[in-house]
């Protein structure tokens, strides 16, 4: 576009200094912002240096080795002697045994039965590694429960296919166990009940076994009343018969001792004192007896060996004495017990747990010997931690070897291993040993390899991690001490004596260290904590806080940084009401798939936010996802370790997870909490992330339930035995003040921006709505009043056209003007503004035949000058202006001049419509003309506040033009400038909707952009020039409505369009700031409404209005670009021009 070079030009900067200065300011400003942003992010990566509270870290340091107390008598060691008979019949059997000892073992080979549990991933891992060393597998799939003896079946199809792929025979266990409680009635009632009930049970059992492709079933019934012995016998026989028929086996699990009697196993009164039974002994129909050669001292006993060598051998002697050993499978222990002798709680732990605990307690450093050696050949040590004194008894590969030797010597049919997942990994090597171990084998057995398995110490769901690992060592030797024989005349004793020459013993010099999780915060039995994840949320968090306040309960909220940022008020409320808060990362992404610095950013950004909102830090952290499961994979420990070691957090997991986020129903949430209550003492609920109405409904009832069952709901700090200030230290002013200031300011600034944005959106929506309604109402009023265009006011008119390179269209234009049916006198003046094409010639052709037409020539001086020239040449008082590319209808001039009948009317705007509808762009403009320009004019004319009488079609009073000082050159929009000046002079400006002129709209984007840039820049110039009109009471609606409307709607709003569109796109892609959609919908709806109204008034078809929707996306960005370009250009002017403007602005009013 051409740049006019007149000095008076609005925004012009003749010295060219404004832009360089402005640019300098801009660059410096941008640099500062950039530095601030970088610095801000830097603080988010600067660790807050949390001081881990004293009582959390040191569990590890509080483990202490204790001196081995003098070994107590092992009261259970000699139980077997009561069954070791010296009777005559026993002698007979001894002979039988002697014969049996000479026989060759079963060619089928040794049975190796692995005990498997579903709930421990270690069990699965062990099975996968050692499937080839096993022949049979015993998962806990069946249980008999309740008075009505329900058969509960929980098979695992994966294990079924795994077993068949690895040629393992499945022998599922059938126990009378529910949770941890044995249910003797379940078996007794079945055995004593109706035959019908038993048959039904057997049918169900068989069907299940078949579907599992099991080889049979292992029955493990405990705590039964021996009074019903005969019924058990009958029942078992019945089961056995059915299994046999189906080609399956019945195995029967026996705890050595009472079970011999309870179940009439041998049928020998000598072996079973007090047993008088006329039923056949179990050994006559049960395929195998699975005897538990462990739990000499169990969880409920006082600490002692799990399976001492003499105890185990004693029972072997009993069994060998009475039974066919080949029918028997000896189950060997491969686990450990940790008795807390203070709290009387016993844990079953793994061999590795036992190693880790010893190692961290420093048992190997005390100088006390810990060994698997004579006479018991069981490992045992003591340690202490804050909650009490512990005794650990463990079975290892060495005890396993010794047990295995004697069980094989007794020529048992096989062995069982209880259980997969808790064993010393070297038992698998020991099992394959042939002959006596060589020195190199002994050496290999002495090396305890530390692996990636995770071990656990302590109780509670607040954990600390230590991932260090170190191999351990034990000195393994062949033992030369002999265990004394009990009865030298027993041939089996001789066999044992042979074995005793080469038992193994191990002296632990170095316990292995495995990655370890320290658990804390188990609290008292009746202490429980409630935690909420993912908040705060504006809808649910307040409801939950209300409930907690009403119930007087303190909870802990694990907050997401992103939500803290959105709802800082809620964070403050949580803290103010005495609850605790923890860090739950910024965006709730899975830490396992995150790099270290990402995780640091997630945690520290959230921490900084919490600090700036609450003035406190938090030392609590809960990882998103899987906080309810104990990590079993070393990879899961890494983020916890980072959070704990690098960032200083205390990691809080939980065990009571009712999965309320999945909305299982209020009742179900409550029921799950009840079911899980005994599993742990930290409850997880959610206060955000969706519809939490179920959680809100369940919470008060959960609290009531906990109170009823006698629980005290405590805060995490109470659970850890700390103060709230230790967990959430108030910020120390001297600690990292700069970082906190920058982070805080950054968050506040961002908040300010976001807050302003929303305020602006709401404000602008309100304005748009108000404006739309006002415009619609005014336009409607104008439309209804109507204008009598046929009235008789027919003054003489001069029609003025400024033409510059209009050769292509000028003749058509002239024809349309001259073809008017206007009855009054008319002259047409065309000013050729130095066109370089054939414009002059084309006009000349016409002028020759048309006396009403005059051609005026001038040098190219711009449109304003041309118009001035034309006005000067015109002879009549009423002057009609039209653009060279605009076509009149015959009635146009008549309609146009009507309002001028009133002497106060200084100018009339016609109804410009787009004539060329060939392109999409043009069609858009057509709609824009109808609903933007013309509708506005209809409305504005009601209040006499039309801001522009378009040069394309308008009629003005000559006296008014001269009063206004004519067309001025200092803006690109001389028509707007003139219109506003006329307003100053007190003229009325009218609109004649029936004076239709068809103008030619640009058909390309670039053409349109050029045109609109001219308009926009011109309009801005005029607004600036006439800025004193705005909010000037003298000018009424113009100053208070139409001019501010241009400022805000046509410049301000259009300028922010790209930002809003950008946010819209962001919201579409990432789902944030969904509020912007409302705004968008409202604005679009209003646009559509106005378009429809305008189309109706202008007699266009309604469906055209829908073009407004695509227009919004194509047209608005273009307008925005144009506006920004104009602003940019305006700034590129000069400061000096500003002062000058001030002066020019006053010119018209002087005139």
């Amino acid at each position: 576009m051409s740049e006019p070079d007149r000095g008076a030009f609005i925004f012009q900067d003749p010295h060219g200094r404004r832009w360089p200065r402005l640019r300098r300011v801009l660059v410096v400003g941008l640099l500062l912002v950039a530095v601030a942003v970088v610095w801000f992010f830097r603080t988010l990566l600067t660790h807050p240096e949390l001081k881990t509270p004293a009582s959390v870290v040191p569990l590890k340091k509080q483990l202490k080795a204790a001196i081995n107390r003098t070994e107590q008598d092992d009261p259970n060691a000699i139980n077997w002697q009561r069954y070791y008979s010296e009777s005559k019949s026993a002698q007979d059997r001894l002979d039988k045994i002697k014969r049996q000892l000479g026989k060759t073992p079963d060619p089928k080979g040794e049975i190796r039965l692995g005990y498997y549990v579903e709930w421990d991933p270690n069990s699965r891992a062990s099975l996968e590694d050692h499937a080839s060393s096993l022949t049979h597998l015993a998962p806990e799939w069946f249980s008999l429960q309740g008075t009505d003896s329900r058969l509960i079946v929980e098979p695992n199809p994966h294990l079924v296919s795994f077993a068949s792929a690895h040629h393992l025979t499945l022998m599922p266990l059938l126990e009378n166990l529910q949770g941890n409680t044995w249910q003797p009635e379940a078996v007794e009632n079945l055995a004593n009940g109706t035959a019908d009930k038993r048959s039904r049970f057997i049918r169900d059992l068989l069907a299940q076994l078949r579907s599992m492709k099991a080889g049979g079933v292992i029955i493990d019934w405990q705590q039964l009343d021996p009074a019903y012995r005969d019924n058990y016998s009958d029942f078992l026989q019945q089961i056995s018969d059915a299994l046999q028929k189906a080609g399956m086996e019945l195995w029967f699990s026996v705890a050595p001792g009472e079970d011999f009697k309870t179940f009439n196993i041998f049928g020998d009164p000598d072996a079973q004192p007090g047993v008088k039974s006329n039923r056949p002994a179990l050994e006559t129909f049960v395929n195998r007896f699975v005897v538990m050669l462990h739990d000499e001292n169990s969880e409920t006993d006082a600490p002692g060996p799990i399976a001492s060598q003499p105890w185990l051998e004693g029972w072997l002697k009993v069994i060998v004495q009475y039974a066919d050993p080949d029918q028997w499978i000896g189950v060997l222990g491969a686990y450990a017990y940790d008795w807390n002798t203070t709290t009387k709680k016993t844990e079953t732990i793994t061999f590795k747990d036992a190693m880790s605990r010893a190692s961290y307690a420093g048992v190997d450093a005390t100088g006390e010997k810990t060994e698997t050696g004579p006479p018991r050949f069981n490992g045992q040590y003591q340690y202490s931690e804050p909650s009490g004194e512990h005794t650990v008894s463990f079975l290892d590969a060495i005890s396993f070897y010794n047990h295995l030797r004697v069980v094989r010597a007794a020529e048992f049919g096989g062995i069982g291993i209880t259980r997969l997942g808790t064993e010393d990994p070297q038992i698998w090597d020991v099992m394959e040993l042939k002959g006596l171990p060589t020195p190199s084998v002994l050496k290999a057995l002495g090396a305890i390899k530390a692996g990636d398995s995770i071990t656990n110490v302590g109780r509670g769901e607040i954990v600390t991690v230590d991932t260090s690992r170190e191999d351990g060592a034990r000195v393994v030797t062949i033992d030369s001490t002999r265990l004394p024989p009990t009865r030298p005349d027993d041939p089996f004793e001789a066999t044992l004596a042979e074995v005793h020459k080469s038992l193994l013993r191990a002296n632990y010099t170095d316990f292995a260290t495995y990655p370890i999780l320290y658990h804390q915060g188990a609290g008292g039995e009746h202490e429980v904590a409630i935690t909420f994840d993912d908040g705060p949320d504006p809808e649910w968090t307040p409801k939950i806080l209300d409930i907690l306040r009403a119930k007087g309960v303190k909870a802990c909220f694990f907050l997401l940084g992103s939500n803290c940022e959105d709802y800082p008020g809620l964070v403050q409320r949580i803290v103010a009401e005495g609850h605790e808060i923890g860090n739950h990362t910024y965006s709730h992404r899975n830490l396992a798939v995150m790099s270290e610095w990402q995780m640091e950013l997630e945690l520290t950004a959230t921490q900084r936010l919490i600090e700036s909102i609450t003035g406190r830090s938090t030392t609590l952290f809960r990882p998103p996802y899987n906080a309810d499961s104990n990590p079993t994979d070393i990879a899961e420990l890494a983020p916890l370790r980072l959070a704990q070691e690098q960032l200083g957090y205390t990691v809080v997991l939980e065990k009571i997870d009712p999965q309320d986020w999945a909305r299982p129903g209020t009742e179900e949430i409550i029921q799950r909490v009840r079911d899980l209550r005994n599993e742990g003492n930290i409850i997880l609920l959610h206060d955000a992330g969706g519809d939490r109405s179920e959680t809100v409904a369940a919470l008060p009832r959960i609290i009531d339930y906990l109170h009823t069952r006698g629980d005290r709901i405590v805060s995490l700090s109470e659970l850890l035995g700390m103060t709230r200030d230790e967990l959430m230290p108030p910020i120390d002013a001297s600690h990292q003040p700069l970082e906190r200031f920058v982070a805080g300011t950054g968050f506040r600034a961002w908040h300010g921006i976001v807050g302003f944005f929303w305020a602006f959106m709401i404000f602008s929506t309100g304005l748009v709505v108000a404006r739309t309604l006002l415009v619609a109402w005014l336009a409607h009023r104008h439309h209804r009043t109507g204008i009598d265009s046929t009235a008789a006011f027919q003054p003489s008119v001069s029609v003025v056209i400024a033409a510059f390179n209009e050769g292509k269209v000028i003749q058509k234009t002239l024809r349309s003007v001259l073809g008017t049916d206007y009855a009054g006198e008319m002259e047409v003046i065309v000013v050729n503004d130095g066109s370089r094409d054939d414009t002059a010639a084309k006009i000349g052709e016409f002028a020759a035949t048309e006396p009403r037409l005059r051609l005026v020539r001038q040098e190219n001086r711009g449109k304003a000058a041309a118009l001035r020239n034309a006005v000067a040449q015109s002879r009549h008082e009423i002057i009609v202006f039209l653009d060279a590319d605009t076509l009149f209808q015959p009635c146009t001039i008549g309609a146009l001049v009507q309002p001028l009948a009133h002497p106060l009317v200084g100018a009339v705007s016609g109804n410009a419509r787009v004539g060329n509808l060939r392109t999409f762009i043009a069609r858009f403009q057509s709609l824009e003309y109808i609903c933007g320009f013309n509708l506005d004019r209809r409305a504005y004319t009601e209040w006499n506040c039309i801001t522009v009488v378009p040069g394309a079609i308008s009629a003005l009073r000559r006296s008014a033009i001269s009063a206004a000082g004519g067309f001025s050159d200092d803006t690109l929009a001389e028509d707007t400038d003139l219109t506003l000046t006329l307003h100053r002079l007190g003229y009325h400006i009218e609109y004649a909707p029936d004076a239709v002129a068809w103008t030619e709209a640009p058909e390309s984007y670039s053409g349109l952009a050029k045109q609109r840039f001219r308009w926009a820049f011109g309009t801005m110039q005029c607004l600036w020039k006439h800025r004193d009109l705005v909010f000037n009471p003298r000018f009424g609606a113009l100053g208070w409505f139409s001019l501010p409307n241009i400022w805000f709607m046509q410049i301000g709003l259009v300028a922010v369009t790209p930002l809003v569109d950008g946010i819209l796109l962001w919201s579409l892609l990432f789902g944030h700031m969904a509020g912007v959609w409302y705004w968008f919908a409202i604005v679009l709806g209003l646009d559509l409404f106005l378009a429809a109204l305008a189309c109706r008034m202008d007699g266009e078809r309604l469906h055209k209005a829908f073009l407004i929707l695509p227009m919004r996306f194509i047209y608005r960005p273009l307008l925005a670009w144009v506006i920004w370009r104009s602003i940019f250009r305006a700034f590129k002017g000069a400061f000096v021009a500003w002062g000058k403007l001030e002066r020019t602005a006053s010119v018209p009013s002087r005139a």
Partner: protein
Amino acid sequence: MRFRFGTFIAIAAASLLVACDPSSTPPSAGTPPPSPAQPQAASTPVPANPLQRLAIPQHGIYTGAYIDWGDKEDTVTLEAIEKFETMVGKHQAIVASSSYWGEQSFPDDNLRLITRHGSVPLVFWSPWDKPYVEGRGPDKYSLTSIIAGEHDAYIDMWAEKARAFGSPLIVSFANEMNGEWFPWSGKLYGGSTPIPGSKPVHFQGPETFKKAYRHVVDRVRAKGATNVQWVLHLMNYSLPQEGWNLAAEYYPGPDYCDWLGFSLYGAQFADDDWTQFFPLLDWPYEELRRIDATKPVMVCEWAVGEFPTLGSKSDWLRDAFRLFKSPKYPNIKACVYWHERWENDDGRYSNLHVNSTPDALESYRQGVADPTYLDHPIVEPTK
């Protein structure tokens, strides 16, 4: 409570009384069905001033249970109560548990749990020391030491906490004293030795007991624990069943007990004889009625083992629920089942569980379902 000898005597008595079992007359004939119990709306007692106590229901009998609380009879859990209630199909108006003197504590947690659950606690407050084994004779909490005031501090502490607890609480202090297995049995304190000069003749054993009993009640009352109601809790048949050892001898006076009560057990061991329910209830009820006909009667413990070869537990339970509500025994206002299973030294079990068999459970469920058996306590302010 486990004991071996009560039933032995019971059988002797039963053989005398079996002839007049009222069950031989049709129970429904002239017996108007007891008006439905006060609606189950009785609100959960809330610990607050003024103190509250359990009202004696005009119609109906509170149903309650002791539920397998372990060796010290005091590991009360909500889960077990709820499981039991689901099993028998009825909420419990009374839940029983023990407080042993050897623990030197007040069972605050248990009582609050039971109260919050909407039941009234019945506490067996037993003055003995560890190990809590029957037949060991008097220990440091002997009746004489109580009378001598040696444990006043403990009693006062217990009373203060009971008052602070504030909700209804029924206390059975030193129960089954007319037996010989507990260390507070009258037999162990001079038994039948007459007190010189007393007229009519009083006996040393029962007199010692009453002195100790009154001492304890007086001290507790002095602390203002009016929410405590006292039940004099005997064995249904004395051992020995001799004049000096009968219930009347142990009666401390109408001011010292709010309820009269006894334990009532059928066969508990495999070598017991089976006794029908009627004689176990009838004579003992009359014995109490003769002492004081105005006092409500509580069957503080009742149960029978599962011995299919001896007799039908389900019949026994059915009789029990039929007879408790019989118009013949209008004073019976509460019955508390002893739900426990334990292993005996010989490896055999005593299974007193209501669900020892499906039949027994069904019988209990049907019996207790009668609206006469009140499932919620009715609570009133203390006088």
